[in-house]
């Protein structure tokens, strides 16, 4: 039996082009070509970091309808973990490129492990009892966010803790008049790698297949005999680990870890996943890029309106696509 070929899914290309559109509109206002390229490269790096922080959240939401308002707190935990790793590894720092790099990787891994483990406890203790009840979910995860933030303050004090990039990543690369910090290139590379990794896992592995199926139709996956709850715990832990990695990247980018960073980033992350379409990894990547582009361009052209500009962007996108750029069923 040959069987008819499956119908090809319709490829919706327009949302993917919006970052180009934004860049094209902003270019004439910025004027100088070198400034424009510098800003754009910086935005891509920022977008990569936002993507890392937001991607897990959007996936967890798509799968189990769980929106974690404590996601920002995990980001802060990641950044603080990096400060601990750096403090412990201080004698080794600045020795050589290899050691610096090892310390950086160690910080990323530790943050992922700590946040993943914390995510497990958090999911079992707080989220699991309120599956399917949005109101309770919002309330209880807000409570979780408060407790984690306050614990960070109690453990690490109220002053921000310095977190500078490894010496190998300090300074900028300069091509003519275009400059980009080396660290941003690292962040961009890592973000791209995590994006590709997520796409590969989601589309090429059995686990990914189950996750996608769960996003599409939870009951059906359960009816086929898979324990979606266990799968979800895994996704939630991965989401928390990604938040931790994002927290390290962002903390180093900002040169400090603060307990309050979680709340501020949560706002940006929410804007990203609303724009991208709740549950969509590709949408999340595009949303992160858009938010970063607009934030950087607006920060250059009209600094006072930088944050408001993201709200305007969100409104504009939602007027065009009320469910975000790539809504759930069109991943």
């Amino acid at each position, binding site marked *: 039996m040959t069987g008819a070929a499956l119908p090809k899914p319709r490829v919706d290309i327009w949302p993917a082009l919006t970052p180009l559109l934004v860049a094209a509109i902003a270019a004439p206002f910025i004027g100088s070509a070198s400034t424009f390229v510098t800003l754009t490269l910086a935005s891509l790096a920022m977008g990569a970091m936002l993507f890392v922080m937001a991607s897990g959240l959007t996936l967890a939401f798509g799968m189990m309808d769980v929106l974690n308002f404590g996601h920002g707190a995990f980001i802060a935990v990641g950044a603080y973990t990096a400060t601990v790793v750096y403090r412990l590894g201080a004698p080794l720092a600045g020795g050589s490129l290899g050691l610096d790099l090892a310390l950086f990787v160690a910080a990323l891994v530790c943050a992922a492990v700590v946040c993943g483990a914390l995510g497990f406890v958090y999911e079992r203790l707080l989220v699991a*009892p309120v599956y399917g009840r*949005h109101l309770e979910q919002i309330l209880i995860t807000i409570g979780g966010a408060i*407790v984690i933030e306050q614990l960070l303050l*109690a453990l690490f004090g*109220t002053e921000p803790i310095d977190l500078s990039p490894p010496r190998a990543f300090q300074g900028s690369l300069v091509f003519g008049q275009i400059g980009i910090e080396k660290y941003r290139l690292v962040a961009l590379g890592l973000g791209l790698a995590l994006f590709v990794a997520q796409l590969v896992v989601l589309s090429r592995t059995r686990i990914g297949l189950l996750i996608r199926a769960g996003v599409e139709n939870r009951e059906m996956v359960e009816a086929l005999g898979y324990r979606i709850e266990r799968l979800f715990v895994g996704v939630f832990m991965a989401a928390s680990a990604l938040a931790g990695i994002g927290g390290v990247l962002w903390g180093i980018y900002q040169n400090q870890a603060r307990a309050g960073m979680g709340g501020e980033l949560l706002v940006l992350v929410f804007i990203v996943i609303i724009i991208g379409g709740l549950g969509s990894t590709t949408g999340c990547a595009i949303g992160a890029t858009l938010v970063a582009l607009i934030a950087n361009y607006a920060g250059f052209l009209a600094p006072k309106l930088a944050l408001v500009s993201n709200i305007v962007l969100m409104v504009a996108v939602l007027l065009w696509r009320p469910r975000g750029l790539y809504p759930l069923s069109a991943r």
Partner: protein
Amino acid sequence: MRPLSGDPPRGWPARALVALVALGLAAAPFVFPGVKALGVAEKICVLAALAASYDVLLGYTGVVSFAHVMFFGVGAYGVGLASYALGPGWGALALGLAAGLAVAALLALVIGLFSLRVQAIFFAMVTLAVAYAFNVLASQLSDLTGGEDGRSFRVPELLRPGYKLGEWLGQAITGRTLCYYLVFAGAVALFLILLRVVNSPFGRVLQAIRENPLRAEALGYRVVVHRTLATVVAALAAAFAGALDALWLRYVGPDTALSFSIQIDVLVIVVIGGRGTLYGAVVGAAVFVIAETYLRALIGGLSQGAADLSLPLLPSLLHPDRWLLWLGVLFILAVRFAPRGIVGELARRADERRLAR
């Protein structure tokens, strides 16, 4: 004439509790003299009114908004900036109040129509983002709002501390006393109006939407319209509460009128007091403010004690500034194990007693 709209608290313990708070607040200037105590009483009045307006959304409509304090701030800034710009006077107050209410209603309408179409969870995210942007905007437009410093302003002579009216029951009646009673009366009136709203046919529809939006829609009620109207009503009430608070403080600034921590406080008050019973807001506000004012000192004492015994970690966990940590734990426990809150649990027990008889 039914001031309580035929909806008194259920069960005598809840009634006694609400009556105790109401009487305590009504007699506060005479029973609890002193500047600090009167400040505490005023805070309870304002937070109870604000929490009651939030309960219309959270408890009755089943919608979580993180922009509620933004409306409170709009009301406060309306009164504050009008008095600052036009000088002290009743006209400036009225103008500021009207402007604040209008802006709040308009903002609520736009946000509601825009973000309540899809899902309730969407609304929570959008309001969080909007409130955050609004705060940044308010502190950046410093020419208008005074930025981080805020604006101090003067109120009409009648309400100033220096104004002496005489003496009663051994207490000097000053403008401050009058101002307190103005806030108290405003809060009571607001509460009774909200009680009327939630017991109206409109309020019933809101509760139907909370229980099952699809069914409410199937019965012919337009869910988006009702949710949006509920947002507007709640926003108007919050703006009014904000105006009262500004009048008392004679100051508006981001910390007192827009801070996200007020939003958290209101959330905690409504959940611990009891969602879906406006009385929960009153009891919750009283418990919260009294605990905040007096328990903090207790925690601080424990922290000192732990430090003296050189116990690890405990001193910083019990530090008075970490008060929110314990509040957070309490909040989680309340959501998880007592979702009805204080008033709701008392009402449930009263119902059980009645059925058992």
